[in-house]
Structures are given as structure tokens and as C-alpha cells.
């Protein structure tokens, strides 16, 4: 390890670590370090150390226990039904996908050897040969066809049903080749196939009490709502296989209990730590925080097709009333990036950086409310624990409203049934959208006129046309330009206020290494298990 200059103290060390945890960029950090008179070289070495000892050599063996935040008897090993982070983690360790996204958000091949297309409509997927399922069966095209076709069957209850619908034909060409024909051209298919729901299972599988996949781990124990134990798959197709001998996954829904378990050493990874627990981790040498800003957001939706959202001034007023900075600082404790009311996060290569977030301006908000004639009317905002941090956000908005004479009332409703009963239904409500890898998925899911999750009931023919155009285009520059414009349209015209992109913070033991951020979400896009190792 590089020797540190003498005026560099442990306190400074902690400060740098803290800033990194808060998501400070390398440039900001260096600026800070320069200002404090530390040599750039020394600062660099601190950064290196602080952002986990990346350079250390992986160690084989050992076992770990990780805790997610949600679990119930509905826990499933069926990738189509997977709905909670817990399911994703398990699916990632027991199964493999055709493709996956790396840290940079680029598509990499997993079970697929190549994916080819000429027109973005007809695709040829060639599989890697000799991949073995846990039960010894060899992976072939039938497994892939079965795995993908399941999503079209409504009886399966697939979460990816609406995405999968565009695959009008899925057929076996030969033992290792599958042909996929889409409804209309979509250049993003390889990215879509990297979603967790499109894990490949063996042909004909209907029993998911245990998992038979091609993943890095074999399922040894699975108790829904309790735990799973995974052991190393000796026949893993990626060669040397995972570093860990085994890992146990549980869920601790209570944030405080999860953090305490991490601090006491009962678990080595605590997923999705509430920002307000950050102070508990600070100054604890045995734990670290791993921050990912993948693009998960909690947004305030105002339906444009009914009162009060039908009055454009109300929507406009709300956009000024949302104090994004307060939400970032107070609700999320700085572990967020300020959002500009559109779903494509800064980490995404199609993100439009020129679109400035609306500034908090109570006067303008008041002006618009007055114009809409709703000043003083009681308007309920529906929030729930189901949409993370929405209650706190609602309180910030409500307080701001109270200050300009806008009577917004927070209505907290139960998590159970929130998604079917309030989300998309209430005039003013909160939603929570998990990261999606491409703007096309986001737009077609959330903003197209016929989008299943059109949160604000936004309708624009032009937007729909642009979406189809970009989707079918293989010209990157053109795509980017279209996507930038679409982002502007959403920010200005739709009723979805996206105040921040929320960072995911995973608490990890200092003994755990190899965890890197991933655009598909926390815990390395839920696939951490095969990449991490433990200090001996």
C-alpha cells in the first residue's frame, strides 16, 4: 500500500470514504483533496483504497450470508414470476440468461454465443455448446424456446408478459439456434433478453420447488419466505465457477434489523439500506457501503385525464412545488441524483444532459395554482410504503404546498394491493419504477399512448411515432437525437414528476470483495453471488 503523507489522518480517510459513499464524483473528490493541500498522488491512492480494494486478488472458497429486504411465501424460483429482489438474487445464482448487462450498461453474451439480426425484426440466437443444467441435461434450443414462450401464456402469470408479447415467433432452428421474430423492429432485443425474467430453464419445467438451471450455484435449500442455500455448481459453464463455496440468502424486511445484522456480523451483505441508516455505518471499520445509481426512481404522478391533473396549470404548479433538493438532501440523505421528470437516468447513454431539472419555485407554483383555480382546495396525494420513500416525499411536497396555500393531503395507504388499487388509478399518487436498461423499454412501458403503465395517462401521437422510429433504427446518432427529444416531451408534457434518481446503498462487510455497481440494480444487478469473494 502506498505510504500516505504525514498530514493525512484517519479522519480525512473517513471523510473521503464518506464522500464517495454519498456519490461524489472522482473529479469533485480530487478538487476537495487539492483544496485541502494533499498531493494528487496521495489522494488518488486514498480513492483507490476507499472505493474498495478492487485490485485485490479473488480468493476461492468460503461462504457468506446476504440479506435482501423483501420476502414472503410468494417467494418463487420461477423466473417468470419473480417480482422481488429476493427472487432476482436467487434466479441470478441458479439460472443464466442469454445475455447480461455489464457495469457499463453494455450487452454481454451469457448463454448466447451470438445474437444476430439484419433488420432488428428477425433475430438468430446461437447458444454456447455443452452448457449443463444442474441435473446434468445439456442446454439446447428447446429449453430456450420453452423458457421464452412461457411468458406469452397468461396462466403462467409472467411479469414480463407485456414485453414478451412483441416476440411473435420463437422457434428452434437447430439444436443450438433459436429464431425470434418481432412484431416490429426493435434493436434492443439483446438488452431485453438480459432482464431477470428471461432466465433460461429446462424444457417442460413446471415444478419450481427447487431450481434446475445452468447458473453458478445449485439450489440446496429453498424455503419460501425464509431462506435459500446455494452451493457452488461444479459444472459451471463459465469455467472456474464462482469464488464462494456456498451462500445463503435471507430477507430481513426491517431496515434497522438488517443493518444491525450486518453490524453484528451475522450477514455480510445487507441490501438496500435506508439512507438514514448511513450514520450507523460511518466510522465502523468492519462495514462499507456500496452505492449504485441505476435509475430507480419514485415519482409523483398526476393523471392528465381527470381532475385536478386535467388543468395544465395544476400540473405545472406541482412541478415547481416539488423541492427536488430537499428530497435529495433530507429524504434521501444525498444518496440520489436530482431528476428532470423523465425516466432515463444519467448513467444511461441516451440520457439528455441538456434538460435542466425544474427549480423549486414556490412563487411560480402559487401563480399556477391560482390560475388553475385550485388554490386552497384539498387534494389528496396517495403514497405508500410500497413505493419507496414516497411518504417522506409526499410530506416534503405537502409542507411546501402548505406554505403557498395549496392544501395537499398525504393519504398513506397499505402496501398490500397498492399496485392494483391505487397506482395508475388515483388522480395524484406516487409510483416506483425499477431501472430498465433501455429508453425504449421505459417509454413503451410508461409513456406510449397504449403503455400498460402509463402513469399520468399521457397521450401523444408524435411521441408514439418517434418511439417506433427510434426502436427500429440501428443508427446510434439518430436514436440518441430522438430519445433526447422524447425526454424533453415527457418532462414538459407528461404528468409524472421524477424528482430524483435514487441511489441504491448496499451495506457490505469489509471482508467481502468484488461487488461493483450495475445498471440493472443493487447487489450488482442482483447477480453479485458469482462475482464476490470473502477474505480468508
Amino acid at each position, binding site marked *: 500500500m502506498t505510504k500516505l503523507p504525514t498530514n493525512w489522518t484517519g479522519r480525512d480517510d473517513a471523510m473521503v470514504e464518506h464522500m464517495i459513499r454519498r456519490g461524489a464524483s472522482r473529479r469533485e473528490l480530487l478538487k476537495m483533496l487539492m483544496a485541502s493541500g494533499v498531493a494528487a498522488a496521495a489522494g488518488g491512492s486514498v480513492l483507490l483504497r476507499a472505493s474498495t480494494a478492487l485490485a485485490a486478488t479473488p480468493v476461492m472458497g468460503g461462504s457468506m450470508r446476504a440479506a435482501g429486504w423483501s420476502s414472503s411465501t410468494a417467494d418463487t424460483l420461477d423466473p417468470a414470476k419473480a417480482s422481488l429482489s429476493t427472487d432476482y438474487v436467487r434466479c441470478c445464482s441458479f439460472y443464466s440468461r442469454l445475455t447480461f448487462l455489464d457495469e457499463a450498461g453494455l450487452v454481454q453474451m451469457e448463454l448466447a454465443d451470438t445474437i444476430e439480426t439484419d433488420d432488428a425484426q428477425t433475430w438468430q440466437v446461437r447458444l454456447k455448446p455443452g452448457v449443463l443444467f444442474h441435473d446434468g441435461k445439456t442446454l439446447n434450443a428447446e429449453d430456450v424456446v420453452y423458457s421464452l414462450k412461457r411468458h406469452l401464456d397468461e396462466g403462467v402469470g409472467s411479469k414480463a408478459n407485456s414485453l414478451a408479447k412483441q416476440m411473435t415467433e420463437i422457434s428452434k432452428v437447430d439444436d443450438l439456434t433459436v429464431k425470434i421474430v418481432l412484431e416490429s423492429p426493435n434493436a434492443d432485443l439483446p438488452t431485453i433478453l438480459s432482464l431477470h425474467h428471461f432466465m433460461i430453464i429446462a424444457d417442460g419445467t413446471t415444478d419450481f420447488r427447487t431450481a434446475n438451471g445452468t447458473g453458478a450455484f445449485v439450489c440446496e435449500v429453498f424455503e419460501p419466505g425464509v431462506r435459500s442455500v446455494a452451493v457452488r455448481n461444479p459444472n459451471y459453464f463459465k469455467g472456474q465457477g464462482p469464488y464462494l463455496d456456498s451462500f445463503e440468502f435471507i430477507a430481513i424486511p426491517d431496515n434497522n434489523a438488517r*443493518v444491525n445484522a450486518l453490524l453484528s456480523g451475522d450477514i455480510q451483505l445487507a441490501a438496500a439500506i435506508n439512507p*438514514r441508516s448511513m*450514520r450507523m455505518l460511518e466510522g465502523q471499520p468492519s462495514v462499507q457501503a456500496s452505492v449504485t445509481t441505476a435509475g430507480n426512481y419514485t415519482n409523483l404522478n398526476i393523471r392528465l385525464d381527470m381532475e385536478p391533473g386535467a388543468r395544465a396549470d395544476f400540473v405545472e404548479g406541482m412541478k415547481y412545488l416539488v423541492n427536488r433538493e430537499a428530497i435529495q*438532501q433530507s429524504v434521501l440523505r444525498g444518496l440520489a441524483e436530482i431528476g428532470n421528470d423523465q425516466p432515463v437516468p444519467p448513467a444511461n447513454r441516451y440520457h439528455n444532459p441538456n434538460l435542466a431539472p425544474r427549480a423549486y419555485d414556490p412563487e411560480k407554483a402559487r401563480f399556477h395554482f391560482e390560475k388553475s383555480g385550485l388554490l386552497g382546495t384539498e387534494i389528496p396525494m396517495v403514497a405508500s410504503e410500497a413505493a419507496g420513500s414516497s411518504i417522506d416525499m409526499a*410530506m*416534503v411536497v405537502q409542507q411546501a404546498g402548505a406554505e403557498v396555500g395549496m392544501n395537499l393531503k398525504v393519504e*398513506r395507504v397499505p*402496501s398490500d394491493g397498492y399496485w392494483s388499487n391505487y397506482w395508475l388509478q388515483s388522480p395524484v399518487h406516487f409510483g416506483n419504477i425499477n431501472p430498465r436498461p433501455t429508453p425504449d423499454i421505459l417509454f413503451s412501458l410508461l409513456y406510449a399512448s397504449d403503455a400498460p403503465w402509463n402513469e399520468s395517462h399521457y397521450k401523444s401521437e408524435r411521441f408514439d411515432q418517434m418511439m417506433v422510429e427510434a426502436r427500429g433504427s440501428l443508427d446510434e446518432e439518430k436514436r440518441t437525437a430522438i430519445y433526447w427529444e422524447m425526454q424533453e416531451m415527457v418532462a414538459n408534457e407528461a404528468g409524472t414528476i421524477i424528482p430524483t434518481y435514487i441511489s441504491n446503498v448496499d451495506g457490505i462487510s469489509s471482508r467481502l470483495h468484488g461487488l461493483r455497481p450495475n445498471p440493472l440494480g443493487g447487489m450488482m444487478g442482483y447477480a453479485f453471488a458469482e462475482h464476490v469473494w470473502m477474505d480468508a
Partner: protein
Amino acid sequence: MMTLRSASTPDRGRKPRAYSFNWVGRIGLAVMLFWAVVAVIGPWISPHPPGEIVDWDYFGPVTENFWMGTDYLGRDIFSRILMGARFTVGIALAAVTLACTFGVILGMVAAVTGGWFDMILSRLLDAFNGIPSLLFGLVVVAAVGSSIPVLVLTLGAIYMPGAYRFARALAVNVNTMDFVTVARARGERTPYLIVREIFPNILGPVLADLGLRFVFIVLVLSGLSFLGLGVQPPNADWGGLVRENIEGLSLGAPAVIFPSIAIASLTISVNMFIDNLPTKIRDRSE
């Protein structure tokens, strides 16, 4: 002292000394009254609106401006405790009144009428007792959401069977007394027997029981809040305050310590008061 006397034993014109109780009970009473007053005047004396973020920092320490520190969002805990008093005391009181009113009335009716009515009601409520109360609360709140009336009704429903059982047992005892037989032999109807003959004689223990039930309701309410079901934000009862700020516990944040103290002070004081009531009021309660 005066309030207690007139409330619990309306007809008794004994010498005041007979109802004096020791200093532990007096402290309990003083704390109870203190919180009752706070519950009423709280909103007028709180320095900040309960929802206002007054500090960009969180889990702030006790300072000149923020007497009990700030919470996880940087709101003033002192103001929030003053506001929470109204919800905690109010909801618990409403629920306990509801539970006791229905429980006591049904209990007395069952004791006096006896027979099938008594048997069926007792069985039903017994069965209800077998359902864990927190789970019941969770289910109800999951079904209809959490609002103050729902909380009051739920908590009231949870404790009604207990109040019923207690009042029934007392009323059965009183019902066998000769003065009830005298009234019955006179030709008095059931409502008279219940209201005039039995009720005054079970009032003392019922009030003592009501106090204990109040404590349980405060705790169940805080338990429900802990599980995420309580008063609508930005308001919160004390249990809700503890839950919101539980992360601050290991930091020793005042934001979690003061609401906890508030809960404990209320429940302990009620217990102290009840435990030290003069035996005349309490003796039939155990």
C-alpha cells in the same frame, strides 16, 4: 383528586380521606394529567409545524432551537411529540372508551339475562380472543387503510372481549347479591337492574381495568405504528415517531429516545396510578 372521586364513585359522600392515596399514585396522576393537557393544547404551544423540515441535518442533537433534537428528515421532535400526544392519548382513550362501553354493557346484559344469550356471546367473544390482536390490526388496516376512525374501531374491537369478560365476571357476582334479588322481586325490568343496581357497583373496578386497558392500547397502537400502520403522515403517534427514527437508536439520537420516554412515562404513570388506587375502588378488580 376531585375528578377521580366524582368519576369513580359518584354517590359516595364519604370523608375525603377515604380516597387519599400515596405519593406514587399522585405522581402517576400528575403525569397523566400533564399528558392530557398537552394532548389538548399541544398544537398551540408547539414551536414548529410538525411537518416542517427545520434542519438539513438529521438525527440532530438537543439544541437551543430544537429542544429534543431533530428527526430523520430534520423535523423538530419536540413539536412532533406535542402533536403526537393528541393522537396517542386521543386514539387510545377513544378506543378504550369504545371497548369498555360496549364490553361493559354486553357483559352486564349477559350476566343478568344468562342462558343462551350469555352462552353464545361468551363463546363468540372467546373465539375472538384467540385471534392475536396485532395480527388482527394488521389485517384490518391492510383491508381498509389506516385512518383515525379505523384505528379507534380496530383497537376498540381488539379489547372489547376483554372488557366484556371482566365486566361479566363482576356483574355475575353482583347479580347474585340480595339487593339485586330484592329489585327483581319488586318486579324491576332488566334495564333498571343493569343501570341502577349493577352498574354502580362494578364501576370502580371497571375504571381501574379501563386504565390498564388504556396502557395496552397505547402499546398496541405503538406496535401497529411500528409495523407501519398508524396515523396519517405528516402526523404520527408516539409509536410512529419511535419507528420513524429507530435507526437513530444506536446513535443515541434524541429523536428516538424522547418519544420512547413519552410512551413509557404515559404507560408507567397510568400503571402507577391504578396500582395505587385505594383498595376500596380496586379490591373487586382482581
